[in-house]
């Protein structure tokens, strides 16, 4: 096994748990702590990527472009990354993000729709950015299928393609097989992004590294959507014990989690009832807070909504389907009553 590159996405995936209310001051403190601890890439964007600020996903408290600029100014050696989901963000925001300091762009599509990302990879390369492809909700398709989609992203100019377990639904063998299939098919790097809905974020991350993953993601204190992500400080400790620490300061990351991030967290993401249901039903982790809000409005159990969304094969970004399903379930109950 070799040491993977670790990208911290507290300031992007964690944006969901923060309801997209990160401030410039918080970004500055978190970036300084990560940068000092040797984290090489720090992602900063609205949780749903560039231009994610919306009714559908929640409005940003501070413009993500301002946060990106602060992040870039606060880092001495770490690169700043942004997420872009075609269909939500466009090349227009990508250009602005690059002007404001982004050096890496992670371009995400549902794991069957890689061919909508060509124009974005093209522009990213033109702008001189490092490019990462993100195949979201990758538990929904088998390894060989994902390898074909990843190969499309490679052909558009990706420097790395990630298997993204957006639903936190994978078991270690699922993660291993998917990373291995991409390693065999591609000549570029392969990454893995975990969610902890089934309590397997660290386990799956390790399985992915065993299968050859070159890059993995973490969030301080696991601050992310659903039950959160693999905690960056925990990845550092485990890699260090495995003898493959990529240069991370384990104690500095623990301190960053403890003293910088924990005090500003609205709650500690854990695999609780609703988060486990997300992993179990295989739906997008960000549905958690939206499903709770809408379930309360309609007098429903969030789990009913989440299981039905899984049955309907909802994909990343379909927060509006939660309302749709709630309307259907409420109408069905009225008919019975």
């Amino acid at each position: 096994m070799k040491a993977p590159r670790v990208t911290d996405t507290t300031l992007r995936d964690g944006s969901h748990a923060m309801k997209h209310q990160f401030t410039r001051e918080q970004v500055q403190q978190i970036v300084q702590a990560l940068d000092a601890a040797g984290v090489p890439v720090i992602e900063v964007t609205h949780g749903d990527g560039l231009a994610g600020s919306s009714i559908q996903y929640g409005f940003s408290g501070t413009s993500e472009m301002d946060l990106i600029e602060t992040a870039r100014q606060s880092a001495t050696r770490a690169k700043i990354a942004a997420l872009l989901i075609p269909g939500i963000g466009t090349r227009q925001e990508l250009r602005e993000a690059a002007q404001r300091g982004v050096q890496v762009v992670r371009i995400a599509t549902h794991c069957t729709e890689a061919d909508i990302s060509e124009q974005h990879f093209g522009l990213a390369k033109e702008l001189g950015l490092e490019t990462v492809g993100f195949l979201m909700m990758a538990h929904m398709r088998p390894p060989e299928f994902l390898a074909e989609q990843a190969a499309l992203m490679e052909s558009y100019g990706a420097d790395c393609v990630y298997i993204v377990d957006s639903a936190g639904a994978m078991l270690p063998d699922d993660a291993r097989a998917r990373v291995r299939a991409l390693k065999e098919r591609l000549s570029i790097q392969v990454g893995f992004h975990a969610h902890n809905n089934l309590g397997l974020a660290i386990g799956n991350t390790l399985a992915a590294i065993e299968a050859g993953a070159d890059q993995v993601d973490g969030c301080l204190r696991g601050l992310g959507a659903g039950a959160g992500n693999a905690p960056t400080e925990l990845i550092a400790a485990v890699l260090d014990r495995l003898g493959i620490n990529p240069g991370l300061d384990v104690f500095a990351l623990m301190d960053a989690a403890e003293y910088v991030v924990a005090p500003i967290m609205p709650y500690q993401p854990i695999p609780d009832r609703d988060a486990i249901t997300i992993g179990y039903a295989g739906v997008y982790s960000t549905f958690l807070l939206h499903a709770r809000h809408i379930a309360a409005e309609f007098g429903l159990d969030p789990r009913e909504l989440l299981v039905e969304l899984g049955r309907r094969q909802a994909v990343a970004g379909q927060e509006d389907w939660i309302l749709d399903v709630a309307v259907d379930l409420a109408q069905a109950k009225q008919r019975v009553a």
Partner: protein
Amino acid sequence: MYKILRDPGHMELALVAGIDPQSEGLARARSLGIPASHEGIAAVLADPEIKIVFDATSAKAHVRHAKLLREAGKIAVDLTPAARGPYVVPPVNLGQHLDEPNVNLITCGGQATIPLVYAVSRVTPVRYAEIVSTVASRSAGPGTRQNIDEFTFTTARGLEALGGAQQGKAIIILNPAEPPILMRNTIYVIPAGDFDKDAVVASVEQMVADVQRYVPGYRLKSAPVFDRRSTPWGERVVIAMLLEVTGAGDFLPPYSGNLDIMTAAARQVGELFARHLLGVREEVVA
């Protein structure tokens, strides 16, 4: 093509043109006895009897076609995002641009959602409108896939220009579920001030009925939902409308409601131009 064959109104389908001699579409047209050509725009320009042209090529091609058609004195109904002429959504402004040589139909998501934003803005000023269009992966062709940003830009501009929103935003999501999902659109509207909910509901219901006259599969899944959310303008009531569009199944499968609403709008616009050219005066009924 199928929509005009099924209900020609005051039009006559004179030619179907493409650029691929092996095209299945051209072969189908010929098998139905419709003249077809693989010589593209040249074949259209060669026939002086053709007055109205529906262009469903690509934005890039339409920029070139628009000029040629204008010079030839033909009216272009543009189904690409090229937007050389003014935007048209039939129940909003059909009839305002009858003297234009070129009109643009925005996007499928725009045709589906702009009528409902307009239905709100005609009773109360709209600060912000946002739409999320979810279409079955199988009904999104290579043109949409390679130019997904154009969908976002063009639809958002349409929400402002025709929907009447001060600010518009559009999101598109492709869903690969099997069996394929019907076209789903969520329309969120934030009015600029206090508003009369009953007036909004009545205006929306009227608009749904108006669209149904030419897109029978157009329906709201429930009455508009009013929900308080935090917004950049403070805590505000957001109007959410859940719209489903089932295709008529004339030729494309019913899940392609996105394509159906575009072709239905095109036929509607073409019919009005035809009546205008012929001097027919009565009200258009689809």
